[in-house]
C-alpha cells in the first residue's frame, strides 16, 4: 500500500500535465517509427512532416523490408536464441540457487562470493577470448555461438537464491518428513513458490538477449543466424540510408514481439523485476 493523500484539483492537473509531457517524450520515437514506416520517401525527408502519411506507402515499405532480407528469419532467430538461453539458464541456475539457499556444504561461502563477484563482470569482457575459442572450435557463425556464452546467468542464481531464502525452513522440513528428496523439493516446493522470481529472471534474460547487439555483431556473419538488432543494422548499412521507410518497417517488426508481450503482461513484467531485486 502506498501513501496517497487527497490532492487538490490543481495538483491533479499539474501531475497529469507533467507526466503527460514526459510520456509524450517517451512515446514520440515509437509513434514516429510507426509513422515513418507508412510513408513514402518524399514524406520522410521533408521539412513539413505530418503525423499521418498523405500517401499510404505501408505495403511498399513492409514488403521491401521482408524481401530485401530475411526479416522473419531474424525474428525467428530471436525467439530460438532467447528461449534456448533462458531454458538452459534456468536448468543450471535453479539447483545451484537452492543449494546456496538451503543446504549446508563446504565451500558454500566461497561459491556465493564467486557468484557475487561475477555479477560485477560486464558481459563484454570475455568477448575476445570467447571469440578466439569459438573460432578454434569452428562454431562461430552458428546458434551455438549465440547461445553458449550466455548459458550461465549469475544474476539468475542470485535472484533465485534470494527468493529461495524467503521460503520458510519449516516448509522444507515438512516436505522432508513427508518423504520428498532434495531434487523433488526443488521441483515441487521451491519453483512453484518462486514464480515471481522466475518471471523476473525470464524478463531480464529475454530482453537482454533479444536486444543484444555487441556479441552477435562479433560472432555472426551469415544472414541466416542474425538476431533482430544485427539484422536491422545490416539492412540499414546495405540500404545506405535510402529506403528509410523500409528500415523503419523492419524496426517496427523487430520491436513488436517484445512490446506486445510487455503490454499484455505489463503488471507481471514490472512486478517481477522490482519484486526480487531489493528484498535482502
Amino acid at each position, binding site marked *: 500500500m502506498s501513501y496517497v493523500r487527497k490532492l487538490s484539483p490543481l495538483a491533479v492537473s499539474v501531475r497529469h500535465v507533467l507526466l503527460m509531457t514526459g510520456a509524450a517524450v517517451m512515446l514520440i520515437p515509437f509513434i514516429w517509427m510507426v509513422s515513418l514506416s507508412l510513408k513514402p520517401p518524399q514524406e520522410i525527408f521533408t521539412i513539413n512532416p505530418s503525423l499521418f502519411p498523405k500517401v499510404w506507402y505501408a505495403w511498399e515499405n513492409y514488403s521491401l523490408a521482408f524481401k530485401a532480407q530475411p526479416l522473419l528469419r531474424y525474428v525467428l532467430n530471436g525467439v530460438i536464441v532467447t528461449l534456448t538461453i533462458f531454458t538452459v539458464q534456468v536448468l543450471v541456475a535453479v539447483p545451484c540457487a537452492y543449494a546456496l539457499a538451503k543446504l549446508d556444504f563446504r565451500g558454500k561461502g566461497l561459491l556465493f562470493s564467486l557468484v557475487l563477484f561475477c555479477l560485477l563482470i560486464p558481459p563484454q569482457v570475455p568477448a575476445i577470448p570467447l571469440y578466439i575459442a569459438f573460432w578454434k572450435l569452428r562454431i562461430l557463425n552458428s546458434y551455438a555461438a549465440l547461445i553458449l556464452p550466455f548459458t550461465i546467468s549469475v544474476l539468475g542464481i542470485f535472484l533465485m537464491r534470494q527468493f529461495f531464502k524467503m521460503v520458510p525452513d519449516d516448509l522444507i522440513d*515438512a516436505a522432508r518428513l*513427508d518423504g520428498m528428496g532434495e531434487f523433488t523439493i526443488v521441483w515441487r516446493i521451491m519453483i512453484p513458490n518462486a514464480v515471481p522470481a522466475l518471471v523476473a529472471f525470464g524478463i531480464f534474460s529475454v530482453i537482454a538477449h533479444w536486444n543484444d547487439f555487441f556479441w552477435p555483431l562479433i560472432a555472426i556473419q551469415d544472414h541466416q543466424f542474425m538476431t533482430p538488432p544485427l539484422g536491422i543494422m545490416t539492412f540499414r548499412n546495405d540500404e545506405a540510408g535510402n529506403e528509410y521507410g523500409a528500415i523503419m518497417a523492419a524496426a517496427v517488426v523487430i520491436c513488436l514481439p517484445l512490446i506486445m508481450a510487455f503490454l499484455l503482461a505489463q503488471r507481471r513484467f514490472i512486478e517481477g523485476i522490482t519484486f526480487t531485486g531489493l528484498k535482502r
Partner: protein
Amino acid sequence: MASVKIKNINKSFGTVRVLESINLDIEDGEFLILVGPSGCGKTTLLRIIAGLEYQDEGQIIIDDRSVDNQLPKQRNIAMVFQSYALYPHMTVAENIAVPENMRRLNAWQRLPVVGCFIPGTAAVKAEIQQNVIEVSKSLGIEHLLKRKPKQLSGGQSQRVALGRAIIRRPKAFLMDEPLSNLDAKLRVETRAELTQLHRRLRATFIYVTHDQTEALTMADRVAVIIGGQLLQVGTPKEVYGDPQRLDVAEFIGTPKINVLPGIANSKGLIESAQMVIPLKTNLASGEEIKMAIRPESLEVTDNSEEPQWRGKVRHIEYLGSSRLAYIGVQGLSQQIIITFNSNNLRFNINDLIGIRPIVNHIFLFDEKGRRIKPVIEQERDLKYE
C-alpha cells in the same frame, strides 16, 4: 502407535548447552506435553525425535527400535509445525495427500502428465483421494478441500496441518506449539478439540508448549524442561501439587507462586518474616531455605488470630470469578499474592489485613532449589499454635 524412549540426550549448539541428559519414557498412546519457558530446548528435543536435528549423545528409541540411524521420513512420525508449514501453492486436498503420494507412488507415477498412463496409478490415486476425504471429514474441513492455504483462517490451517499428519497413521504425533498462532478464544476451543482428538485416535502425542495452562489442561503427563534440563515428569496434578524443584513450582501455576525466604530455627522449625511455621525439618539451625506457597493456599486471618503476617493491600485485580490481592507484608521485600472470593471477604486497597499460609500446602526448597520434605510425626504438628 508406539512408545518413545528418550535416553540420555545431550545437545549443544556451539558452546551453548541446549539439552542436558534428558531421559524420558513416553508410553504408547500417551499425551505427553514438554513444557518450559521460551527457548531452544523443547523444540530442539522434538526435532531430535523427528530426526530433523542430531543429538550429540544419547538415543531415541521408537517402538523399541533405535531410530538414530534413520532419516526423518523413515521414522514414521508426523509433525505439526508452529507455522503449520502448509504448501502454499497446493490446495487443501493436495496438501493432505502429499505424504500418501510420496509413500505409495514411485517417482514415475508422480510425473505430471506421463504418470497417469502407468497402470495401477489411477487406482492408487483414487484410494488416496478417498483417504483424504475421510480424514478431512473427521476434522470437519471437507468443505475446504479445494481452497488454498492463504484462504484459510488460523484454526482451519491448523486442522489441515493435523489432517496431513493423521493421514499417515504415524507411530507418534509431534506438535510444536500448535496453538500459539491462534487468538485466545480459539485457543481454548481448540484445546478441548485436540484432547478429544487424542482420545479418538488413541495415539501417542508429544506436544511442546511454553503455556503451562495448556500443559495442565491437556496432558496425561507433563515434562517440565527448564534451562535444558528435565526437572520433573508427572501428571498435571503431581507437577502442580507436588513440585520437586523450585523452578517447577514457579513455572507451573498462574498466578505465580509466592516464594519467601525462610530460616531454620533452633528447634528445626522454619521461620519466615518473623512467623514460626510449624514444619519440622532436619535442617541445622540457621540454614536458609526458600518457602513457596500458592496464592490460593493463604488464608485471611481474623485480626486477633496469631501467628499471622500483617500487611497492607496494595493492589486488587478483578478476574471475574475471583480476585487477586497484592499484599505488602512488613519484613518481606516482595508482595504476597493471594486469591480470594469476593463473597466471603471484603476489603479495599490500603486496608491492613492479616494472612497466613495453610501449612499442608507449603513447599520447602533448599538453596539449590531441591524440595525438602518436612518431618511429619503427627497430624497435630500441622496446626499453628
